[in-house]
């Protein structure tokens, strides 16, 4: 009986090619971004580009400083994490440890739905409900601001934070919790002092994933942030790294267009950093 290895090999080869396709896309994008992002930085100067506080790409004497975008993205993400992580974490503890089956099934469905809502819908609701509300509540001329963007981002990152934290919390061996309860700790003490610390790598991964989602979001934040390249301030119109690229690309040309590629490159580097952090935590979780 001779095995026919040719078919096995062929299938192996096909799958390998499909796998490499993904790698190829990543490589292509990386190379493309680096090649098209470098010239503008070279012309403007790395320091002036990264730390220039003024962006006036269409002025008679154009200025290409992207510090406002970088800081807006960083502040916006940090704000979203500050609000989203506690809410998401407590929701995850509730869902994975306390909720009864029916409530859990219902709420998990809702969380999945929240994850599936297109970002333009978040933007739309934000524009029509949140922005006017912010204007009223804080008595400012325009509600489209960093603050509104933070709120929208905080809601948008909730599903990833809840789901990943839940998976980590549910993976905590029941033996740990039994041991804690048998020592006379209450269930709530057990969740926060045993389960959560045991799941800390997974929860950290959830946070990093949230950071990734928040920093990469464009459409929703463009619609609620006013999209003006100011240095960030909580109740002022701001522009993010993502929205800086999106809002000018359609009519840009020359150095302006090249500078937009450079912004994309900076954003890409941020995402790479976040991914590396995520992998670090996921690997730690596995060990």
């Amino acid at each position, binding site marked *: 009986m001779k095995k026919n290895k040719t078919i096995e090999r062929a299938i192996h080869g096909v799958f390998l090619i499909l796998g490499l396709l993904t790698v190829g896309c990543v490589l292509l994008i990386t190379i493309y971004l680096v090649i098209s992002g470098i010239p503008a930085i070279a012309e403007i100067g790395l320091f002036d580009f990264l730390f220039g506080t003024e962006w006036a790409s269409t002025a008679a004497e154009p200025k290409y400083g992207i510090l406002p975008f970088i800081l807006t993205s960083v502040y916006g993400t940090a704000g979203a994490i500050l609000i989203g992580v506690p809410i998401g974490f407590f929701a995850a503890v509730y869902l994975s440890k306390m909720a009864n089956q029916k409530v859990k099934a219902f709420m998990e469905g809702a969380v999945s739905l929240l994850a599936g809502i297109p970002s333009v819908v978040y933007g739309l609701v934000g524009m029509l409900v949140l922005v006017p509300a912010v204007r009223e509540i804080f008595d400012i001329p325009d509600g489209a601001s960093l603050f509104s963007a933070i709120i929208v981002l905080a809601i948008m990152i909730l599903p990833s934070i809840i789901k990943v934290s839940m998976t980590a919390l549910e993976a905590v*061996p029941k*033996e*740990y919790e*039994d*041991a*804690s*309860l*048998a*020592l*006379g*700790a*209450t269930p709530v*003490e057990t969740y926060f*002092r*045993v389960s959560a*610390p*045991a799941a800390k790598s997974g929860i950290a991964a959830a946070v990093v994933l949230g950071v990734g989602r928040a920093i990469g979001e464009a459409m929703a934040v463009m619609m609620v942030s006013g999209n003006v390249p100011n240095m960030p301030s909580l109740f002022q119109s701001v522009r993010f790294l993502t929205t800086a690229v999106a809002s000018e690309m359609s009519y840009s040309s020359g150095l302006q267009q090249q500078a937009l590629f450079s912004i994309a490159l900076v954003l890409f580097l941020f995402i790479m950093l976040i991914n590396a952090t995520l992998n670090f935590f996921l690997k730690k979780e596995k060990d």
Partner: protein
Amino acid sequence: MSDIMTAKDLNLWYDQTQALKNVSIKIPEKSITAFIGPSGCGKSTFLKTLNRMNDLIPSVKITGEVCYNGQNIYDSSVDVNELRREIGMVFQKPNPFPMSIYDNIAYGPRTHGIKSKVKLDEIVEQSLRDAAIWDEVKDRLKKNALGMSGGQQQRLCIARALAVKPKILLMDEPTSALDPISTSRIEELAIELKKSYTIVIVTHNMQQAVRISDNTAFFLLGELIEYGETEKLFSQPVDKRTEDYITGRFG
């Protein structure tokens, strides 16, 4: 010796399945009581009713009473966390928390409000000494407990249980995952501990019951078949089923 714990007509169901049938028993203070019987006979289930660990399983229903120092522990006024603090438990599989040796032991006392470093240091040392593991771990208290051997982990778990100063220690087949040398160390430890604590141990190993226990209870199919002094139960069993089991005819 007075009885520290008594059960009367205890019945327990998992959904429709009855796992314990009219179990009544008196457990004397500062002694070792062993529960033996074949797998699925209800001995572990019964052990867990003694500190209400069965409460954690949603489908469980219990009737009858279990009294600790004269108080029915299934009474609605009983604080189950307080109860479990008095009646500690060591599990079948060593289950130290994924934290340092020190933090494992300090977990219980901290939970019960002890914050003073001096006091915690004292409790940690005393508990580890009582569990006969201090000399092995005193130089690596800050190391993760998961790096210890299985036998050490189990003694650490005993130390952790002792740290909240319980009156009773329930042990659910504490040596079934351990090698013979670790097993004998735990057995020696149990004998030492009965000077100060009441120990109830579930064991698969009849020789273990003979070696360490004062009284033995034989369970079969959810019923307590026979209960008495270990020596007597193993030399002159009253019930035919006990005799069949201890002579190895089944189980």
